[in-house]
């Protein structure tokens, strides 16, 4: 096998994704031989599955706390940097408060008005993640709309 032929083969742009995918296959296959261990004491723990059903109307996202009065009980990485830890988790808008009194299935809807458990993580303790996530959407939208709006332009 001539090495010059190999260089020419991998110089085509459309070949590189295929080669990279094959390489990733080999790397990921090692995972089957590596023992996976699970550290029990995780951050932001969940209750046991089905553990809160019919005990709380916010199941499975009830983390304790009373809106605007008592912060919820959550475990974060650096509590000393978070003066309002748990307050956003405990907060419910008046609308969602009303809904949660009416139905025991409130936690299973996506009416996650500001202050669901996920929103506390996304807005406050790990807010940088959400900023970057929506920045990705913004940038990809810019690329998309630029290509779309300028496709008929002639140089």
């Amino acid at each position, binding site marked *: 096998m001539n090495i010059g032929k190999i260089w020419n083969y991998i110089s085509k742009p459309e070949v590189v994704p295929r*080669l990279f995918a094959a390489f990733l296959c080999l790397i990921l296959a090692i995972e089957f031989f590596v023992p996976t261990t699970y550290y029990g004491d995780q951050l932001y723990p*969940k209750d046991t599955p089905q553990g809160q059903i019919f005990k709380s109307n916010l199941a499975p996202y009830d983390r304790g706390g009373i809106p605007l009065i008592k912060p919820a009980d959550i475990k974060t990485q650096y509590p000393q940097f978070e003066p309002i830890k748990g307050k956003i988790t405990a907060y419910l808008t008046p609308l969602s408060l009303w809904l949660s009194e009416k139905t025991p299935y409130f936690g299973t809807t996506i009416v996650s008005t500001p202050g*669901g458990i996920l929103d506390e993580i996304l807005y406050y303790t790990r*807010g940088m993640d959400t900023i970057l996530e929506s920045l990705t959407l913004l940038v990809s*939208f810019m690329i998309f709309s630029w*290509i779309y709006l300028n496709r008929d332009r002639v140089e």
Partner: protein
Amino acid sequence: MDIVSYMFSKSIFVGIVVGILSLYAISRQKSDLHTLLLTDLVECAMLVIIAAIGTDLAEALILPGLVVGLAEFLAVSEILVYRNEMRKSNLSNNKKLRLFEEFLAKEEVYVNSVNFNKMEIIYSAPKFIGFILVLYGAFLTGFTGGAIMASGLLFYLLSQGAIGNGVSLKDIKHSWEAISGFSGIMWAFWILLGFAGFFLFPEHYLFFLLIAGCALALKVGSKLGLIGSLRIRS
């Protein structure tokens, strides 16, 4: 031993198997369009691995992973569409031998024309469905609310485009730029007033929380809704 750590290694196994199979399919794939579709399957494997952790943090990490995949899919598919159009016009315009011709794939470009005349739903339903979805999205607020609002706008505008009532590119250019500018301003609003406010003035967190929720909904809703205003070109 609780159920999450019991299921963890099995979920990871499933995720890796899905990932390896889809990556193998990509490595054997010659068609660009199929490669693009298969990359979505790779992202599903990524979501399975993240979800295997089973804490609230994992649920919060799934959303960025999903959105990054969605965003890249949007940009890459538009690049592919544009590339194929350009290739078609290049093939018809000049037939003479060019430098670097070996870099151009020999794949044929197919443009399917779908007949929309028979679909009753895009004549009668879109106004009603779009209205309901936008109202429901405004009711939800936050990221999910924005996404639902966007899907309502998307459905309405796409169906209008499909039956030929869509606006042309020249008409839409200014309003498009205005709406995407509005969406960008909402993004900045959310970061400067929402996110930074949590750390600068922790005692007024409620105010910043409401700003963050509403600005995010408006941002996502206006942005994704714009995609629906594309006119389908036959």
